[in-house]
C-alpha cells in the first residue's frame, strides 16, 4: 500500500520517552535559576519594607539600651550597609547555603528550618494525597451518577468544604473528634513523652490532614466531575463503546486518564497555596512544622528566618511543579518538550 502523504513520525518508545523526560527535567532546572533569583530579590525587598528590624525586638527583649552595643550589633549583622549591598551579601551567602543566623533559636536559619521541614512535608504530602484520592473518586462517582442523589451529595459536600475556612474546619474537627468523641488528639505531632512511633505520628496526622486536604478535595471533585463529563462526550469514547466495552470499562480505561489532566494542572498551580495553607493549619494544630516556625518568626520579627522560609518554600513549589510536569508528560503522550 502506498504511504500516506505525511512523513512518518517515529513512535516514541519507552527509552525515547525517558530521554524526553530527562530533557524536560534539565530544561526546567535551568529555568529555575533566574526564577529563584527573582524570588530572593523580591522577598528581600519586601522584608526591607516591613517596619522595624529584628534588632529592635532583640535589644528590647534583652533590655539592651547601650548605644555602643546596639551599634556593634548593627555592624555585626551588617545592617549599616546600604540595602543593595546587603542584598548582594545575602545572595552570595545563599550560594554557599548560608541563610543567616537565627538569634532566637540560636542556630543557623537553615538548621532551624531543617528541623521543622519534615513535619511540613509530611503534612503537605498526606493532604495532597487525601485531596487527590477523595477528590478524584468523588468526581468520578458524581459524573457516573450524574443528576442523581450521589451527584448532589458530592456537589453539596464539595460546596461545604470549599466554602469552609480551613482554620474553622480545623477547630470544628477538634471539637468533634477530640473533645466530644475523644478519638483523636487535639494537636501536636506526638504524645508528651511519646517515642514518635509511626502509628503515633499518623494518629496525630489525621485531623490536620483532613482540615488542610478537604478544601482541595472539594476543588478536585468539582474539576474531575466536569472533566469526566466533558471527556465522555468525545468521539473516542463512542469508538470504545462501539468496540463492545461496558460503561465501567470505558470510564476506567478511556475517560479517567484523559479527565485527570486538568486535575494535575491545578495540582501544580496550587502547590504554593497548600504550603501557605499549612501555615494556618500548623498553628491551629500546634503541628511542629515550618508553618509554625514562620508564624513564630513573623511575630518576633525574626526576618532572616522568614526570608529563609520564603526562599526554601519557593524551592519546594518549583520542585513540585517540575514533578507535576513530569507526571503530566507521563499521563499525556502528546506533550512534547517546549
Amino acid at each position, binding site marked *: *500500500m*502506498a*504511504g*500516506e*502523504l*505525511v512523513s*512518518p*513520525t*517515529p*513512535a*516514541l*518508545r519507552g527509552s525515547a520517552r525517558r530521554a524526553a523526560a530527562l530533557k524536560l527535567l534539565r530544561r526546567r532546572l535551568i529555568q529555575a535559576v533566574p526564577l529563584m533569583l527573582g524570588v530572593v530579590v523580591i522577598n528581600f525587598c519586601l522584608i526591607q519594607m516591613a517596619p522595624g528590624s529584628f534588632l529592635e525586638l532583640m535589644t528590647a527583649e534583652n533590655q539592651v539600651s547601650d548605644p555602643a552595643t546596639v551599634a556593634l550589633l548593627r555592624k555585626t549583622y551588617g545592617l549599616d550597609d546600604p540595602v543593595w549591598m546587603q542584598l548582594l551579601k545575602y545572595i552570595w551567602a545563599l550560594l554557599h547555603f548560608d541563610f543567616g543566623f537565627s538569634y532566637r533559636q540560636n542556630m543557623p536559619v537553615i538548621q532551624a528550618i531543617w528541623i521543622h521541614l519534615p513535619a511540613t512535608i509530611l503534612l503537605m504530602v498526606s493532604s495532597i494525597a487525601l485531596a487527590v484520592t477523595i477528590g478524584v473518586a468523588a468526581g468520578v462517582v458524581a459524573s457516573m451518577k450524574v443528576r442523581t442523589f450521589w451527584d448532589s451529595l458530592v456537589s453539596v459536600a464539595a460546596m461545604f468544604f470549599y466554602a469552609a475556612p480551613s482554620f474553622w474546619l480545623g477547630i470544628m474537627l477538634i471539637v468533634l473528634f477530640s473533645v466530644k468523641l475523644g478519638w483523636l488528639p487535639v494537636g501536636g505531632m506526638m504524645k508528651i513523652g511519646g517515642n514518635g512511633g509511626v502509628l503515633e505520628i499518623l494518629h496525630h496526622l489525621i485531623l490536620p490532614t483532613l482540615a488542610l486536604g478537604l478544601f482541595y478535595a472539594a476543588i478536585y471533585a468539582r474539576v474531575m466531575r466536569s472533566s469526566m463529563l466533558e471527556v465522555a462526550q*468525545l*468521539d*473516542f469514547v*463512542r*469508538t*470504545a*463503546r*462501539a*468496540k*463492545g*466495552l*461496558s460503561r465501567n*470499562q470505558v470510564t476506567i*480505561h*478511556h475517560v479517567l*486518564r*484523559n479527565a485527570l489532566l486538568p486535575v494535575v494542572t491545578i495540582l501544580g498551580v496550587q502547590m504554593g497555596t497548600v504550603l501557605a495553607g499549612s501555615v494556618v493549619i500548623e498553628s491551629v494544630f500546634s503541628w511542629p512544622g515550618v508553618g509554625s516556625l514562620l508564624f513564630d518568626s513573623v511575630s518576633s520579627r525574626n526576618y532572616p528566618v522568614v526570608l529563609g522560609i520564603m526562599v526554601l518554600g519557593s524551592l519546594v513549589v518549583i520542585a513540585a511543579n517540575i514533578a507535576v510536569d513530569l507526571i503530566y508528560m507521563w*499521563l*499525556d*503522550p*502528546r506533550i512534547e518538550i517546549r
Partner: protein
Amino acid sequence: MKPLPLEVRDLRTTLFTRRGEMKAVDGLSLTVGPGETVAIVGESGCGKSLSALSIMRLLPDPPARIVGGQVKLNGRDIVPLPEETMLGIRGKEIGMIFQDPISSLNPVATVEKQIVEVLMTHTELGRGQARVRAHELLELVGMPDAARRLDAYPHQLSGGMCQRVVIAMAIACSPSVLIADEPTTALDVTVQAQVLALLKKLQADAGMAMIFITHDLGVVAETADRVVVMYAGRKVEEASVDDLFDNPLHPYTVGLIGATPTPGAERAERLADIPGMVPPLNALPQGCAFAPRCKRVMDRCLAERPALTAPGPGRLVACFAAEGS
C-alpha cells in the same frame, strides 16, 4: 435459508427534547446481504448518522430512543436486547467506523493497546496472542511499517493511518456487518481513495455486509451496490446504484445529483443547488417534507404525505410526481 446479515424494518427513533419530540428516524426499512454495500445518502441532519447509531444501539439516551421497529442482525432482533447482551454484539457481530479518525482514537493509549482491547473483550486470546493478532490486523489494513506503529500514539499518525487503525479495530473480530459513517469525509482526496479501496477489499475477502453513510455521491457511485436516499428522517428513494444515477425518480435525488460537480463539465455551467434548507424535525410540514423546496410540487404534496411505492423491480420512491410520470 440463512438469514440476512442485516434487516431493518420500520425503525423509528425519536429525540425527546424540551422543544418537543422529533422523529429523527421515521420508519426506515432496509436490508443488506452478505458482501453487499448499501449507501445511505442525504444532507446533514437527515437522520443518516442516527440511523447508524440506532442499529448499533449506541444512541445518546437521553434524548434519543428507539420507539419502534426491528433491527435483525443475522436473524435476531437486537432492539429489545438488554445492554449486557449488546456488549457481546458490538465490536463482534457488528463493527463501526467513524467520521473523524484522529478524534475517534483515545489520545493517551497506544495503537496496540486499543486494538488488543477489542480482541481481549470478544475472543479467548491471551494478551501475547492478541498482540500478535493486532500486528497482523495492522498489516491487513495496509499500515505502513506496522510493527513500529503498534507503539505509536494517535497524534503521531496521519489521518489516513488513524482511519486504518479504526478499521482494524472494527474488523478485528470479523463482524458480519460493518457500518461506515462518513469514513472518508475528513481525509485528503488521495487518502480517501486508498481507504475506499481498502474497505472494498476487506469486504470482498470477508463477505461482510456494509452500510456506507455519506453525503458524497461520488463515493456512492464508487462503492455502493444499492442506495437509500433519506430526507428529514425518512427514506424517500431506494434503487440500485446504476438505476439511481441513470434515472433518479425523486426530485430530491435529482437535486442531489445535480448539485454534484462532474469533471469535464463546462466551467461556466453553474452547479444546480437545491433552494431552501432541510426543515427542522419538530416543524415538519403536514404533507411531503420536501414539498417546500420541490420544483415539481403539486397541491396534493402539501396536504398528504406520499408513501413508498415500487415503480419498478428493486426500486422504491415516495413521491406523487414520480408516480404520475
